[in-house]
């Protein structure tokens, strides 16, 4: 299934400065695994050393948080969009 992964601004430096990347994958986990295989540096920003998705990074399939779906086993449909949404703190002085 073709899926588009949207890379947020703070992580673009670790993903070849791409705004989004397309993959063929069956699950969200598979798509993220392809992403971090292509962009090795991104891995430590997305996953803990134990291989869990970091708690300040949320992953959405379309507009749904995968924590409330089947997490990384969430199935993908053709044309779906995965968003990686990290916490950003900027506001006043940045």
């Amino acid at each position: 299934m073709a899926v588009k992964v949207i890379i947020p601004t703070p992580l673009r430096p670790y993903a070849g400065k791409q705004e989004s990347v397309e993959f063929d994958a069956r699950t969200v986990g598979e798509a993220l695994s392809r992403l971090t295989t292509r962009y090795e540096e991104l891995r430590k920003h997305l996953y803990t050393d134990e291989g869990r998705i970091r708690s300040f990074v949320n992953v959405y399939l379309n507009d749904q948080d995968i924590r409330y779906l089947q997490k990384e086993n969430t199935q993908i449909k053709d044309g779906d969009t995965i968003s990686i949404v990290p916490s950003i703190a900027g506001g006043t002085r940045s």
Partner: protein
Amino acid sequence: MAAKLEPLTSHPVGLKLSKEEILRYSRHLIMPEVGMEGQLKLKQAKVLLVGTGGLGAPLGLYLAAAGVGRLGLVDFDVVDFTNLQRQVTFATSDVGRPKLEAARERLAGLNPEIQIDTHETKLTSANALEILREYDIIVDGTDNFPTRYLVNDACVLLGKPNVYGSIFRFEGQATVFGYPDGPCYRCLYPEPPPPGLVPSCAEGGVLGVLPGIVGAIQAMETIKLILGRGDLLVGRLLLFDALAMRFRELKLRKNPACPACGDHRTITKLIDYEEFCGIRGEEAPAPAVQVPEITPRELKARLDRGEEIFILDVREPHEYQICNLRGHLIPLGELPRRAHELDSSREIVAHCRSGKRSAEAVEFLRKAGFRKIWNLKGGILAWADEVDPSLPKY
């Protein structure tokens, strides 16, 4: 999910608008969605703005102009030149003045009918509950993770809505946390990123208009909360990409396992947020790595003696254009694959803007076998302070 609305302020009895106020707010009063009832709710409302910078600027201006009766401001900073690119509350003549003094003057000049409270302090676990307690709605316009978690937890403990906005470069996020039955910040992000993974100053910066847009969205949500009108950004995270000029919306859920607002909450009082975020404080960030250093004065003296020292600049090309020491430019991120451009038999001094990235570069190169390499202490900023005051600082 559209949140069910319950106006936060009860219908004001006995409160009236003066003739001047009626004229001032006439464009609100002739709208049925606001009207006299709505304007009186605004007049009765008490809103606290945490941070009077980029997001705080449109927030303060629009909420004061709209007639929010009592506006609290929390900040402890002084206006500097780099603020003026986006913090439109301030004038060039305000540089060097406390932000709160300048903001109070500006907002009172815009609307003398409202009360402005200034809290010139850093919001801490010791004072947050006391300060926030006085207000109906808290608006978070801060710039750091410890204060964001502090504001969130204090709002949850006090049962107050937290109008959230955050920006990075050209991307913004906005939502309303802490609304009855809605999610809080910790439902979304239980923990902050460890300091090492926060984007460094190389990737920092913000397009000046962006906080204007995100802050204006926060101001709009604040006014809707007061009026009890429309669909709030509760349970919805608004993402804004200014370069693509695209808004997207993601669903937020209240996390039953949330440590702050979940069924078995573990956060029942405020904690040490700097420790929680793994930092000792914004003013004195611990150096990421310990490496051999050279001060700008020592380097200048050695160069003046004619010593051949290779200057390695690990900043980004756009920073090199602002100012440079005519060093060899290899951005930190490209160092692993471009290290072969360097001669390990030569003496090398690495620098960046303030010394953090170049410390990482020195650490990396020492591991790669470089022995005669030093980090320029304080970076090109310290060079400008100690050696060459004609160099622009950024």
